[in-house]
């Protein structure tokens, strides 16, 4: 099925009345949770996932995609109004967004964020639609060596692009991979690290782990704070940017879209990194860089556009190769599996209604978010005013139900609690949880493909060099490992 016919087919699925309702519900709920400081798309998907269990697979995944998009939109609201990012990809928006709000331009900041997100998100989806088909066809030629090499490249990117320490990122990824090994060996069915506990025979479930690390841990971090967040007491009005503001922001939106488009495809890149790069580029090319950090509209338009373009294109590796490129999609990957859908090159042929339905639903979701988010911003502001003493117990309640309802097991509540405490301690000790969950999700694929490759080659690593795609991926890994060392040596010589 070509891209255009696929889109029409997808629209016929997405425009069914119940699916339209699910898109609307997903967008609204995602924005609602995304507005809450710290929770972000991972927390939103983890906590809201139980709402999708009784839905058919297509509807469930359509709703989850809506939640993801909504959470991305919602994150910018808190960045602009209270200088606290709703999620990691909105950190940069705080710099100029809050400054604009303090100058009485909260409406314009929110408006440009929404419009920029819409334009960039739509471009990203067009890219997803065009690239998905050819990439899926290519991916059918992938064997275990190619998959192993691409996943290894993904791990290397995750470490290379780590926001803080690369060594800590490696540790987290390796620990995540070790945790994924708990359960029955996929080839020999031997028990590994189960200690005779029947609940561990199938290994740890990604959802309680993610809810713990990103939902409960965030609640703990907020509970320990002794000061409450101050919401700027401004009237949010005039949410349509003026013509002069549009003219100022237009190139920033375009550049942010291009940056986000390509960063989204890169493993470990994604929305977060794209926002930092887009902001940096805008500041560099600006005729008035001194305005950045003081309320430059480009400082809001570029990262928000990059953010949403990356959010769309990051679906490309997930849906065509079955490899989640970032932590949000790693959790979404787990959600796909729970609903009996295996993302990958076969998804287009085995589940075309889901593949094209999700793409079409994201187009519709973008329109819904544009239309609804502007008038609903005063509502989201009120959500922010809900006292913490009401909000956090409710979030804990949703986390509990979310963890329990995966397998109707109290054991999963225990897992969520353990990883909630672990996630809290990881933040205190300055570790990022994202590489851990990526290692956890990619670990089983990594292991199976490595062992199969070694069985095929009778123990020879030459198999990875003989296959062109695998070789290219390994060369990229080598460059990413060597580059920082070369940079470090140069810096030492300068000193």
């Amino acid at each position: 099925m070509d891209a255009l016919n696929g889109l029409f087919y997808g629209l016929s699925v997405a425009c069914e009345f119940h699916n339209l309702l699910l898109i609307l519900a997903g967008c609204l709920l995602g924005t609602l949770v995304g507005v809450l400081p710290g929770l972000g798309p991972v927390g939103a998907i983890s906590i809201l996932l139980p709402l999708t269990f009784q839905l058919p697979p297509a509807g469930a995944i359509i709703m989850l995609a809506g939640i993801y998009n909504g959470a991305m939109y919602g994150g910018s609201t808190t960045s602009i109004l209270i200088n606290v990012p709703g999620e990691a990809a909105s950190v940069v928006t705080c710099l100029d967004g809050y400054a604009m709000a303090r100058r009485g331009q909260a409406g314009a900041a929110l408006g440009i964020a929404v419009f920029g997100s819409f334009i960039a998100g739509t471009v990203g989806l067009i890219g997803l639609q065009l690239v998905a088909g050819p990439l899926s066809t290519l991916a059918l030629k992938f064997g275990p060596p190619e998959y192993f090499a691409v996943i290894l490249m993904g791990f290397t990117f995750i470490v290379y692009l780590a926001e803080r320490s690369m060594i800590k990122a490696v540790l987290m990824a390796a620990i995540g991979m070790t945790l994924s090994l708990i359960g029955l060996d996929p080839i020999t069915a031997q028990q590994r690290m189960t200690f005779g506990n029947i609940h561990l025979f199938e290994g740890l479930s990604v959802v309680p782990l993610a809810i713990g690390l990103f939902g409960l841990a965030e609640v703990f971090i907020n509970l320990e704070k002794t000061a409450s967040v101050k919401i700027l007491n401004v009237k949010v009005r005039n949410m349509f940017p003026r013509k002069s503001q549009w003219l100022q922001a237009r190139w920033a939106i375009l550049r942010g879209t291009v940056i986000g488009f390509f960063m989204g495809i890169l493993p470990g890149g994604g929305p977060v990194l794209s926002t930092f790069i887009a902001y940096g580029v805008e500041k560099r090319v600006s005729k008035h860089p001194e305005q950045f950090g003081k309320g430059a509209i480009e400082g809001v338009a570029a990262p928000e556009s990059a953010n949403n373009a990356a959010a769309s294109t990051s679906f490309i590796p997930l849906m065509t190769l079955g490899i989640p490129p970032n932590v949000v999609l790693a959790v979404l990957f787990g959600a796909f599996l729970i609903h009996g859908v295996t993302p990958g090159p076969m998804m287009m042929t085995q589940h075309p209604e889901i593949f094209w339905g999700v793409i079409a639903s994201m187009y519709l979701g973008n329109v819904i978010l544009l239309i609804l988010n502007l008038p609903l911003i005063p509502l989201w502001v009120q959500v922010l005013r809900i006292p913490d003493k009401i909000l956090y117990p409710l979030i804990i309640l949703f986390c509990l139900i979310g963890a329990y309802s995966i397998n109707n097991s109290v054991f999963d509540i225990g897992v969520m609690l353990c990883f909630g405490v672990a996630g809290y301690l990881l933040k205190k000790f300055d570790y990022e949880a994202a590489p851990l969950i990526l290692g956890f999700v990619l670990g089983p694929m990594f292991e199976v493909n490595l062992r199969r490759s070694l069985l095929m080659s009778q123990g020879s690593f030459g198999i990875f060099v003989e296959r062109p795609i695998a070789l290219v991926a390994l060369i990229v890994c080598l460059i990413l490992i060597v580059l920082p060392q070369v940079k470090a040596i140069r810096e030492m010589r300068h000193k």
Partner: protein
Amino acid sequence: MDQRNLISSIIWFLLAAFVLIISLSLGVGALNNPQAGFMPFWTGLLVIIFSLVLFAMTYRKRSVAVRWVDLWHKVSWRKIVVVAACLAIYAVVLPWAGYLIATGVLMTLLFRLSSMKIWTTAFSAALSVGFSYGLFHFILKTPLPRGIWGF
């Protein structure tokens, strides 16, 4: 030096050493026939190596001084301990108490911990339990535990 890194690298080292021992008991196998212990062995080894690297780098970088006791200074860490303990007890009693009773008690404790007045606490707990039960049990058909009381 950053005590957080020193402490965490020791913890990772010990955990990885444990994983390594388990992997050897499972059998690592050979490259042409990797066994169940193959991946745990190599991931354990990777963690050991990098935890030693982190320890060594932190030890050398004495200019950065972060004491781990400072992490708990001027923060309400006791609240977290209490909440975590409540959740642990909740997980234990949930199967026999059932969702309604166990969650009702838990929510009451959580709202009370937030210094809410007693009547507001009771009302908020009842409302949150009722709403969540209605949403998940009746609308979404999620089977919530009934406990020994049958509800």
